[in-house]
């Protein structure tokens, strides 16, 4: 059982608990965070389980790419209300990349280029959100601004993971024993910690905003 518990799963699970506590009564798009984080934890456990059984698990993460794109796209759809064209264009680009890479590499290999494409699109959404925030006439109390913290978590995660995503194939080809330490795992532990800490805090902000 302990082999199923990793740092990432713990962090994701804590974020899920935060989402459940603070957003279960929310009636806006924020409520989908609970479902998404539930799916994140489920994906991680499934991936771990398959790995434990020595089965390929990359197809699980390929499915998750679709869920992630749908979820992040939906959240930005609400955050960038006036600019829906960007959201649909981004999702179209993602689907195009997904389709091409799926046909080229098959379903059992991780779609790393699509992952890079989706990360780039999400970084663009985050930067666009900041651009709109800066250009808004009114100021916000950023310390208590739920959307700001959510986007901040996302920008750290997707921007910080760029190098590892680009070097994914190389990092997968060499074993961690050769390196002495698993670089990609450590980087993503840090990024996950930042992402889910920011998101958990944003859930709290959202809860305070509503009450």
């Amino acid at each position, binding site marked *: 059982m302990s082999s199923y518990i990793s740092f990432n799963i713990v962090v994701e699970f804590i974020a899920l608990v935060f989402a459940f506590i603070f957003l279960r009564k929310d009636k806006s798009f924020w409520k989908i965070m609970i479902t998404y984080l539930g799916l994140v934890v489920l994906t991680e456990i499934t991936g771990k389980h398959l790995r434990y059984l020595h089965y390929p698990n990359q197809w699980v993460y390929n499915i998750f790419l679709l869920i992630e794109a749908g979820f992040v796209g939906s959240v930005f759809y609400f955050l960038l209300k006036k600019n829906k064209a960007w959201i649909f264009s981004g999702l179209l680009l993602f689907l195009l990349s997904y389709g091409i890479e799926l046909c080229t590499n098959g379903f059992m290999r991780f779609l790393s280029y699509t992952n890079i494409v989706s990360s780039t699109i999400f970084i663009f959404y985050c930067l666009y959100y900041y651009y709109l925030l800066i250009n808004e006439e009114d100021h916000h109390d950023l310390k208590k601004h739920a959307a700001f913290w959510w986007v901040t978590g996302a920008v750290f995660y997707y921007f*910080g*993971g*760029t*190098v*590892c995503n680009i070097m994914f194939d190389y990092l997968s080809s060499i074993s961690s024993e050769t*390196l002495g330490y698993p*670089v990609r795992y450590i980087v993503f532990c*840090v990024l996950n910690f930042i992402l889910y800490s920011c998101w958990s805090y944003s859930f709290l902000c959202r809860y305070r905003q509503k009450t």
Partner: protein
Amino acid sequence: MQISAKDLILLISLASLVFLIAPLFLILYVRSYNIKKKKYTEEKEHMQRIYEQELLNTRIEVQEQTMQTIASDLHDNIGQLLSLSSLILGSVNTEQPEKVKEKITAAHDLTILSIKELRELAKRIQGSQLISSGLHEAMALELDYLKKSLVYAIDFKISGEVKQSNDPDRDIIVFRLFQELLNNIIKHAHATEIGVILEYYGSVFKLKVNDNGSGFNFSEGIGKRGMGLDNIQRRVSMLGGEVSFNSSSGEGTQVTVFIPYSSSV
């Protein structure tokens, strides 16, 4: 040159670190921009509060001046006329019928004069409320009243196309400025002639008030209590305008005020 796997990993780790620092600075920038926006909004709100307070003070001052004028007019003018007519009526002696008609006629004339004065006074009360419908009309009424005192020769000119303001709040401040300039002439200038020119140039209007009085030294006048020059300057700058004082001892004073004018077509 071949790069070893360990070097490459080090490179990846460093690059990842840089890619983490970059959004950090971005977020710091967004935060500092937001703080600037907050300060700007607070400053704007503060200025708005000052403006509203000043507007309220101006309204009170205009009302006070109107009330003072009414009080002095009632006491010095209408009151005197009615007292005189009461005295005349009280002195009517029915045993001297030849003088009764004469006295009643005199009392009647005085009563008619009192009624006329009362009408003038009513116009003046209305005048302070007329500002919103026409600044130049309110100014003309103010000058008419001054003309009646027979102390000053008044010359009032309007040039350019008279525009209706769409901001009555600004007009009341301008009107109060005008009242303060006239008050200064009455209280300090010992003048006999007052000239007022109101000129409309596109989106700006110019108000020029000059007198042939004793004049003053501007640097001394600015701190002098009662002249209200700093008050005038503050109010003009609050309206985004400019004021200039041209005066020297014994040569009269000329005050020119430029104010941006928001007009409705």
